[in-house]
């Protein structure tokens, strides 16, 4: 599968947007969970999904997916701060579920793993309806140890569901290294044990990710679940106040050399006549734009508690207030 220049530039644009939001949040939001370094894994996994397909991203990527799905950056930023202008109008945190809908499943609490079961359920809906869709369910190496994933994989295989499971392996579950946490080899070894075709891919190479996920979705639409492991790296800490005592500076610096955006820019320059200078200027422009809108979102008005009842649950909420 060869990508056209336009397709590669689109991948670049998605990654740069995701990075720009990430950067601005790092500066202006002390509660942010940084995803810098993992843009290729997120963008490559989800960009090719179409109408009728369902995306269930890992939380470290939910905002980037929201942007890819056409949400305005202002709306995404409002969601991260829980403001009135967000999709849920402040009812839920947009950093881990930027666009809750029938086509985008994300986290609904701080628990990890259930999203994989929800994605599997979405694949059941697609299969039962006899539609051609596929689900892509992404989760981290830490989440892979959650028991519900084993249960979900078993059911997906048993029912031949159209779903691709992706382990976005950034090597750390907060501070615990994947090599120490995952018994029995790798997450791919576990996936193979369930009879799923698996691929291990360089998760910082967006082209390789996109191609591997395309192969996996083609398989899943026809035959049932498939698995892809994306080896990547979280360049920042788990969260903004992470002391990062669990890893060395050398390790971080080594991975900085594999920056997924820089790598794609190199391919674009060498093989597609990319104007590096213009690209750098555009990146700076996008970063400034995102920083401005993140500042504005932070200062935007909070939702009015009275509007909480503006949902199909009006009667439930009214009853809750009454104590009935």
């Amino acid at each position, binding site marked *: 599968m060869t990508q056209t220049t336009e397709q590669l530039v689109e991948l670049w644009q998605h990654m740069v947007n995701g990075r720009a939001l990430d950067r601005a949040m790092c500066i202006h939001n002390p509660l942010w969970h940084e995803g810098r370094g993992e843009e290729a894994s997120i963008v490559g996994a989800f960009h090719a999904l179409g109408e009728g397909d369902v995306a269930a991203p890992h939380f470290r990527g939910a905002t980037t997916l929201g942007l890819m799905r056409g949400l305005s950056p202002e709306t995404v930023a409002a969601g991260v701060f829980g403001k009135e202008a967000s999709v849920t109008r402040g009812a839920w945190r947009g950093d881990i579920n930027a666009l809750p809908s029938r086509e985008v499943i994300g986290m609904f*609490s701080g628990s990890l793993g259930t999203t994989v079961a929800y994605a599997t359920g*979405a694949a059941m809906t697609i299969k039962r309806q006899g539609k051609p869709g596929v689900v892509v369910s992404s989760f981290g190496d830490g989440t892979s140890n959650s028991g519900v994933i084993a249960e979900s994989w078993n059911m997906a295989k048993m029912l031949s569901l159209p779903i691709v499971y992706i382990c976005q392996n950034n090597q750390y579950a907060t501070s615990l290294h994947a090599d120490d946490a995952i018994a029995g080899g790798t997450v791919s070894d576990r996936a193979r044990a369930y009879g799923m075709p698996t691929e291990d891919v360089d998760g910082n190479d967006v082209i390789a990710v996109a191609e591997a996920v395309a192969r996996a979705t083609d398989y899943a639409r026809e035959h049932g679940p498939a698995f892809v492991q994306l080896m990547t790296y979280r360049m920042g800490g788990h969260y903004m106040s992470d002391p990062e005592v669990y890893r060395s500076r050398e390790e971080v610096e080594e991975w900085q050399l594999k920056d997924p955006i820089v790598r794609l820019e190199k391919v674009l320059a060498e093989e597609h006549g990319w104007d590096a200078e213009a690209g750098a200027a555009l990146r700076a422009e996008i970063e400034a734009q995102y920083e401005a809108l993140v500042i504005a979102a932070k200062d935007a008005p909070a939702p009015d508690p009275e509007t909480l009842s503006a949902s199909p649950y009006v009667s439930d909420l009214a009853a809750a207030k009454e104590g009935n």
Partner: protein
Amino acid sequence: MARMTMSDAIVEAIRQEMRNDESIYMLGQDIGQFGGPMQATKGLWEEFGDSGRMIDAPISEEAMIGTAVGAAMTGSRPIVDLMFAEFLALTVTPLAHEGGSIGFKTRGEVTVPMFVRAKCGIGPHHGHAEMMAGMLMSFPGVKVIMPTNPQDAYSLVRAAIRDEGPVVMLEHMSLLHARRAEVDLETTAEIGRAAVQREGNDVTIVASGLMVSRAERAAKTLAEEGIEAEIIDLRSIAPLDATTVVASARKTGAVVVADEAWPTAGPAAEVAHQVLRLTGGRDHIRFGFATSPHTPIPFSTELERAFVPSIEDIVATVRETLAP
């Protein structure tokens, strides 16, 4: 009209709803050719098995519920037969903590229309008696119903399947295959409404499940002593119909809760809380509790009998409550 047991009525309601709505499917252990535990799905496999709408599940309770939440979010209306209520503890995150909240957190953009069946209570099975009612009641957005007769079972199941949020039905094993009764297949019910089973002016007995029939027999004994008990069958444990309970309590001046569930932070505690909340203690309403001890349910038949409130316990509690 048709004469049926509560179990027959539940199956009939599911059959009617499945005929009307293609988006409904059922998932549970042994619900295929086996016909369901305690014949819980008798005949449904014969009608819906070929269309793949009756799915035999592996022993994976969290994924059974988790996939159902995901399927419900994306356009299906799943029914999960969880077999026994004690297994609900394995499913709390997807079912209650997240599933119950998704409609609120997304302002109704995404809803979770799912119906969960779970057997409980002392009965012929001599095991699996735990109700988990208090646990379920803690979570906003989760509805809990507990029918005591075939008509309510039929009507409440139809309402539960049509509800936009998760509804758990606790099926008491001593009632499922007990007396037959006429069921009007056109009657509908509203979840959240209690029924006054017997009218009286001296004491209000609030009950659900098997305790309703024990309260009825207790009321006959009490009537011989000149005490006329009003019996309220809660039918819906969450939301709990405090309005009906309080109206009766104001009339009789005394509330006795007869309840088989664990007494701490469960239905009995909630009934007392609601009455106090809505009256502010100003109506001088007396309280009595014929409830189980706060211990695990014992195994020996004799100990089990001692654990669950008996007719004599209810009578004695009423006498004590009304004593000057």
